[in-house]
């Protein structure tokens, strides 16, 4: 019988296999790089309604995180300050700055400043700020060096893998309780070695849950 396919079709299966392996490899690399929180979340820095500089306030002026985020060591949420907090200083400093118009408006009307939320864990995750910061987990571990940021950007992936990294090896991340709000401080392990880190975890009875229901209640 005569040929339906040209002779070159003989190499088609091999070409197809090589193509599929290549495609599979490219897709694996692509998904791993572009579709994981390391890429999709880190670096997110939306334009805020007020050009508030953490580098100026927390860095140069040395304001404690808790001056504005008052409830962070008392409850699950790290509160965003009301305009009242800003006006504590700004009724005397830069009183007429056009950049603070939105803050003054919020102060007068009582409507909150429409800040854009950056760090957002999913609804099915239970995260408590107080239990972390009161047990030696510094702000910097999740939020990065906010004291150097002109515009706050998402510094860490905050994926479940990121949480578990620390929940599995807390001794590498804990700080002395007095250093928690000092974003430039070293961890205990960096300062005094791994043994000291382990001792702190033991003495402070730090037992981070690794079961599903620890965070997904």
């Amino acid at each position, binding site marked *: 019988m*005569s040929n*339906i396919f040209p002779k070159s079709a003989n190499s088609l299966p091999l070409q197809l296999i090589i193509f599929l392996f290549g495609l599979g490899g490219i897709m694996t690399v692509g998904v791993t790089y572009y579709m*994981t929180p390391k890429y999709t979340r880190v670096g997110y820095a939306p334009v805020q309604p007020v050009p508030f500089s953490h580098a100026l306030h927390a860095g140069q002026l040395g304001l404690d995180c808790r001056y504005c985020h008052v409830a962070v060591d008392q409850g699950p949420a790290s509160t965003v300050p009301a305009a009242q907090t800003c006006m504590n200083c700004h009724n005397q400093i830069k009183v007429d700055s056009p950049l603070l118009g939105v803050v003054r408006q919020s102060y007068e009307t009582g409507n909150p400043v429409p800040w854009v939320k950056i760090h957002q864990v999913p609804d099915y995750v239970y995260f408590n700020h107080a239990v972390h910061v009161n047990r030696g987990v510094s702000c910097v571990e999740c939020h990065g060096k906010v004291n150097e940021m002109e515009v706050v950007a998402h510094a860490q992936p905050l994926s*479940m893998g990121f949480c*578990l990294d620390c929940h599995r090896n807390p001794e590498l991340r804990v700080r002395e309780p007095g250093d928690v709000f000092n974003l430039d401080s070293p961890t205990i392990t960096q300062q005094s070695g791994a043994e000291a880190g382990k001792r702190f975890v033991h003495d402070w009875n730090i037992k981070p849950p690794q079961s599903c229901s620890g965070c997904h209640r």
Partner: protein
Amino acid sequence: MGHLDETFAAPAILQEVKPAVLPRAVLVQNNRSFGWITDKVCSLIEGKTPAWWWVCFGVACFVASFTVAGITYLVSTGVGVWGHANPVNWAWDIVNFVFWIGIGHAGTLISAILCLLRQKWRTSINRAAEAMTIFAVVCAGIFPVFHVGRVWFAWYLFPIPNSNVIWQNFRSPLEWDVFAVSTYGTVSVLFWYVGLIPDLAVLRDRFYGAGNKLRSFLYGLFALGWRGSNRHWSNYEMAYLILAGISTPLVLSVHTIVSFDFAVSLLPGWHTTIFPPYFVAGAIFSGFGMVMTLMLPLRAIYHLEDLITQYHIDCMCKITLATGTIVGYAYAMEFFIAWYGANPNEGFAFINRAFGHYAWAYWIMITCNVITPQFFWFRKVRENTTLVWVLSIFVNVGMWFERFVIIVTSLARDFLPSSWGYYSPSIVEIFTFFGTFGVFSVLFLLFIRFLPIMPMAELKAVTAQADPHAGHDHH
């Protein structure tokens, strides 16, 4: 064996060999030629699409739409649209999963184990039975995948590294099930496809001869350049044998692992060591039931009596009888062990099955699975094709109810009387299950219309013409 003693006394070489006259059953009747077989099998594809095919296809598509609708509603609303609730959190979905997976087993048994055992009667039915296996696995897969609820996370079933650092629990039989069923599906497709290659080449050549370039091209694409050379055949036979070897343990392992889903748990009525063999026997029983349900109408419509002979039907009936009796024995043994083991929870579970709220389901199961196959003892029954077909339907019904009885009765009456309940399916579940028969039928109808339903070369090998000693008695 009575003459063994004489053998020892007598000289090593017998004076005369008198083999018993045991005529082998003729597997292709009316002394059909090779050409007739090719023409017959190909004519089912080459002829004009019959009107009954279009009618059946239309009905099957309509029925299949019920599954599509049920699943769409589930995905858009949530898994709560099924009737599952504490304490019965596994119900129709897992019943249907086990039912369909079980049906597939006959195809693998016929293609793999009967191949290794050189049961030549398998050749007429193995292609269609393998197709049935694949389509049944497709239907089975729908249920656990959509029971996940958020089906777009179903890939979590596989150990793929992810940013959640979620890893599978390899101690769970449910995870073993993922591998068992996906391996089973893959090997079944491979086995089926390798068997199809020579036949696809035949169709390629015939369509080319008839001037149908498109179909010749399409069959040619999948025939992978098969020319029927000696070397092709020798490689083909080796590949087929290896695949038969790989598939053989799968016949036993897949349903063993499916039974572990239950047996490894601690629930009375599930936690029994008899489950693996009992499930495998049940699977083969239900599978042969389905093979007969499918093949007998095909035999009548396409006039395949010369290829699917009474001997084939006899063989299938006898396997159904044997496995059905094993299943009946297992039912009895479960009761015996429940009594003999003297565990009050176990005893209650079985008494409750037979006489509790779900007794109706239990007695349907006993009637269909234990009593039905006993009719196959009688030659008169086996020779009445219509009756065999009706009985095969009863087998299918009975095996569905077996899974229902096992899964639902045990969950509805577990250790804590305070959480006892009674499960009824929701209309969505009923529609989804009903629709899978449509999905299966659509696939099977496409198969019988576009692919050769019997392996032509293997059929030819079991004809009298293929035997060099045909018609001669001396060896």
